């Protein structure tokens, strides 16, 4: 997509968007709700027409192609399975260009891929949510689309099932060789499944990169805040370092005396007698570890990760400091 813009009334849903996906790549689109993720997906599918800009599929301009000629697969949020057709008929719906003799084989093969071989003759309403999800995926994949588009495919599944299905779906996509553009509102999911993550805000790209880029090198404080799992600690720059109440952090190239923010993740904070004083106000136990929320003397809140066995009761005074001097600093 090159310089694509789409407005609804006065609102620009997608603004001057550039986005490239390579064959076989899984790209996730994340961002706050209303940031234009779903509109982007619908633009690629041709379900919306861009006001301006260019969309190319496999090197050919697709802007004028109607949806049915684009050869994309779309997994809808609510699946949009055809309620009056069996699972097999749903999966075979897009196979009308194949000769009849081959359709059967492709349907069988696709059902095997999603593990629904013996449910082919059921109607969608007879299936569980997870099974419907896989039918939707199979239907989108059966015609072997060059691009697979997924619109929050797991939002109707409970967390347990979601974790399970996520890995399955990812391996199915990898096997199929399609490029995938996957919209999700779940930040963790966006990082886990992606080769590349695109973070959108207000219709444009805020940061795009590998999951570890976004995690370790967020472009600015907003991106860091959206990715989450960390605290932004105020600091002031002095002699190339940002000095926080927890210790110094390298801040090369930032103007002397300027106010900055340091991204501190729970694993970057250690309990140390030489650290800043604070009080434990909350504990979040997640099995493998404890995350303690510490209220510092300045009033700021900080999260500190400790091994599962380290138990500190609420109200205890602790001293904490940074484990490293190499943390992201934002002007």
């Amino acid at each position, binding site marked *: 997509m090159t310089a694509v813009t789409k407005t609804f009334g006065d609102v620009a849903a997608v603004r001057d968007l550039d986005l490239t996906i390579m064959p076989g790549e899984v790209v996730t689109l994340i961002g706050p709700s209303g940031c234009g993720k779903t509109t982007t997906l619908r633009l690629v*599918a*041709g*379900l919306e027409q861009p006001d301006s800009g260019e969309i190319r599929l496999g090197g050919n301009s697709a802007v004028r192609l*109607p*949806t*049915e*000629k*684009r*050869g*994309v*697969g*779309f997994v*809808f949020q*609510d699946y*949009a*399975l*055809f*309620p*009056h057709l069996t699972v097999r008929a749903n999966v075979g*719906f*897009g196979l*009308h*260009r194949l000769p009849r003799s081959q359709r059967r084989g492709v349907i069988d093969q696709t059902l095997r891929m999603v593990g629904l071989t013996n449910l082919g003759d059921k109607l969608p309403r007879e299936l569980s949510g997870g099974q419907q999800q896989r039918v939707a995926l199979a*239907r*989108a994949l059966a*015609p072997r689309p060059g691009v697979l*588009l997924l619109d929050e495919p797991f939002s109707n599944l409970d967390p347990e099932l979601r974790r399970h299905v996520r890995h399955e779906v990812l391996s199915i996509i990898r096997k199929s060789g399609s490029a995938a553009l996957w919209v999700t509102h779940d930040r963790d999911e966006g990082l886990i499944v992606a080769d590349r993550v695109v973070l959108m805000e207000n219709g444009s790209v805020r940061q795009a990169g590998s999951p570890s880029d976004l995690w370790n090198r967020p472009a600015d404080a907003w991106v860091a805040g959206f990715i989450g799992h960390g605290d932004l600690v105020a600091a002031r720059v002095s002699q190339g370092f940002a000095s926080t109440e927890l210790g110094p952090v390298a801040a090369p190239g930032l103007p002397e005396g300027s106010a900055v923010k340091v991204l501190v993740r729970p694993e970057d904070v250690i309990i140390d007698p030489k650290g800043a004083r604070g009080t434990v106000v909350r504990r979040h136990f997640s099995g493998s570890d404890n995350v303690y929320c510490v209220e510092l003397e300045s009033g700021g809140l900080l999260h500190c990760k400790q091994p599962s066995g380290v138990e500190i009761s609420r109200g205890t005074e602790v001293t904490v400091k940074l484990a490293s001097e190499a943390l992201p600093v934002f002007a």
Partner: protein
Amino acid sequence: MLVTIFVVVLGVSSALLVERSGLRHKSFWRILMSLPLVVPPYVLALSVILVAGPRGLAEQAFSATLPSPFGLWGSAFVLTMATYPYVFLLTSAALRSLDPSREEAAKVSGRTALSRFLLVIFPAIKPAVAGGALLAALYCISDFGAVAVMRYNTLTVAVYEQITARYDRAGAAVLSLVLIALGATVTLTQSRLVGDRHAEEGVRRGDANVQSRGSGFPAAGGLAFVGLVALGLPLFSLAWWIFTQPGVRVEDGTGRFALNAVVTSAIAATIIVLVAIPPALMAEGSRLRRLMVRGMILIGYSVPGVVAGLATAMILLQLPLPLYATAGAVVAAYLVRFLPQGLLAAEAGGGAPGPLTEAGLTLGRRPLAVAARVTLPLMRPHLIAGWALIFLSCLKELPATLLLRPPGFETLATRIWVHSSQGSFGRAAVPALILILLAAPPLALLLRRGNIVLGNPTKSS
């Protein structure tokens, strides 16, 4: 106005009784309460006269003279009994789809039954009640047969007399315009009052299954009484008249009248449903479609049959086609009268599969193929039900048939009319009974999805 108030009280209370009392066999009661829809209002009027009129059953049996059924109160009674099912059907459907957690929340907050009804249930069913009341009110404005039989002069009767007795087309046209304006005013006022209720739908958790309390006995008694009056009274009195009155016999050609009625109605219903499909396939939510729906509701429910008949007659006279004074003219009048309802029914069925259409397109199927394989199969139940509704309405349609039938062409409705306007009510009993029996099967078909097809005019606004 009078009828509307009665209809709301009767329709809402019967819906509450059916859906929220300890009544068993709810679906039986639901059907019983909606069955009066098969009885054309003029037949109900006829049977009221047979029972309570001069030399009627009541007079013969108890030698008691009941207050004369003719005039305002008699007409109001008949129209109430004939139109309360509109309110009943829409209200009971709304009650059933009401999220039970709302009522449970009110119960947990310790509200009494009355305040639960006023604060929680009534606001939720208000659009349905208003929709039903609108249908009933518009029906009353446009009714011709019942008020004519009850000798209560309303605008529709005046229009009919202008054209048949005095051949005064201009006068009839002016009166028709007044009628349409009246209907349109009611529709617009009502949709203004209720407002756009799309937001009201919200998320719901399957069908309501609110625990109901109390014995079903008094409820059953009340409902049975209403059903008895609206349905039992006409059936019984017509049958009584036929089998006990010596002067009554089956008129020659009754079978032909029935066949005429069925054939013209079936042709009209089929054409209408076919015509209604393409507009219903239009993109969902497009401005054009919303405008169309609004317009159809307005036209479909505020143009009385007598006006549709008149308009068709005038158009056919101008056309170079040899249609006027043929059975084709009758079919044409039905088309004019009921096409809007057909469009609404098809629209109700075409509204759902928006995302499904998109799914079909992303799978590489052309729009026409998607329509044929996805949209139409999903619309089919709505189309069938719409066909049944229109067939039923055509079967009962009186004034348009009267105005446009060729000489010698009679349907059941016109025979009933001819006999009762000559004062020989007894002779009208046979065609009336046949008409009710013919109307029953399509209604049975309808009842399974009646609330969809009847369409709540306020919901789509």
